[in-house]
């Protein structure tokens, strides 16, 4: 039984975006490729149900797979030490941008799984609260509260770096 042409078009159009989302959800590019492949396979097998909203369907599967992976790995992200990252004002805005990017991505990896999901879905995928709730299979109220919590934790993790460097060397 062949893949539906509509599904193949969907894969060609959106697999990169899904891969990038998966990479941010699990923090590992190799794992992200496996997850995206599995999620797309499940979408293909349920194409009749998924074809009206394939990306939303696949994203929901991806979130579940990422959670399964997290449970299996039992990673205690809070226990991972944060490498202190400080900007060197001598190198200016570009260096600050790179440092900020790395610091933020590192901070993302330190968040608990659900907070990480809400950051990736809301601010990387730019999903609405409603669509984020659907992807995470939770309520909109929970998404809002977890968004606030996630931002607060990110600020806390970034801590002195955020206060000392971002105000002085604002990154656009």
């Amino acid at each position, binding site marked *: *039984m*062949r*893949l539906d042409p509509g599904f*193949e078009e969907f*894969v*060609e159009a959106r*697999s*990169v975006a899904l*891969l*990038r989302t998966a*990479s*941010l959800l699990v923090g590992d*590019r190799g794992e*992200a*490729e496996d997850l*995206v*492949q*599995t999620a*797309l*396979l*499940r979408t*293909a*097998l349920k194409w009749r*149900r998924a074809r009206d909203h394939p990306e939303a369907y696949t994203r929901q599967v991806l979130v579940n797979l990422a959670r*399964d992976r997290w*449970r*299996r790995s039992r990673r205690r992200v809070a226990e991972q030490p944060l490498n202190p990252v400080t900007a060197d004002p001598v190198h200016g805005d570009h260096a600050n*941008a790179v440092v*900020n*990017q790395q*610091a*933020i*991505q590192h901070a*993302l990896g330190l968040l608990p799984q659900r907070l990480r999901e809400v*950051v*990736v879905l809301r*601010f*990387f995928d*730019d999903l609405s609260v409603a669509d984020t709730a659907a992807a995470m299979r939770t309520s909109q109220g929970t998404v809002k509260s977890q968004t606030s919590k996630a*931002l607060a934790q*990110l*600020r806390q993790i970034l801590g002195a770096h*955020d206060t000392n460097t*971002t*105000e002085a060397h604002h*990154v656009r």
Partner: protein
Amino acid sequence: MSDDDFVTEVRGALRLGVADLTASPSLLPTLRRRHARQVAARRVAITAASLAVAVAVGGVAATAGIGPSGPTHEVRDAAVITDQVAGAMDGAGRSVVFITVTETGVGKVSTPDEPAVWNHWYRADNTAVRTQVLVDGQPVWDEGTDLDRRTTTTVDHRQRTWRSGPFLVRAGDATGDMITPAGIRQAMAGGRLTIVGEGELVAGRPTIHLRGDGIAHSGDPMGFWVDRTSHLPIRAEYRRGDSWQPPFDLTWLPPTEANLANLTIPIPAGYSRQG
């Protein structure tokens, strides 16, 4: 820094971090292959239902060869086996047959930490089949097909939804991957059915093991173990590629009200209908 500014910075950082990531060119070819394998594997739920009926109705004969001195001992035994199985199946046509298979690893439903149990029930007269999938003892998916009326009902317990509609078969694929008596006869006539030998004990019962090609519509080779006492097939197997898949057992249940009820899917209260 305001929340808006902070969010903008977070957004920018995340996008920059994965901007170089691209999909592998082998993604779609890999999906095509895996999809084809999964679809074939799903059909076990329905094709297994026809296996026992086809064995009895179509008859089974070993093709040990006919030498110049006449049929061999194996061929004579195969003829006896065929009659016995056919007779047993005719008598058990109203039975409910039960199969259970455990899916492990990253499967259609299972994950490495959570195997999925696939339970199948079907009428031995091939009029109804039901598949229920459980994870950690809880049902996650339930599908039943009335093969006479060609309707299918599906319940998704995770989504709390259900739907019911025609059991669709595409043109040119009318028999799906089901084993038919005709398929068995063709395999027999074409010399593609063989007695493997005395089988292992299945549920404490001595068996005879047989295998054949071209029985299923897909052409996948199949095997089955026939109970020497009841003459019913009580174990079956499929071959995919170069390897035989793990066999699964068939339990024959009398057509009591309780056993027949297993073919009906209950729709839980509060579930919404789809489609």
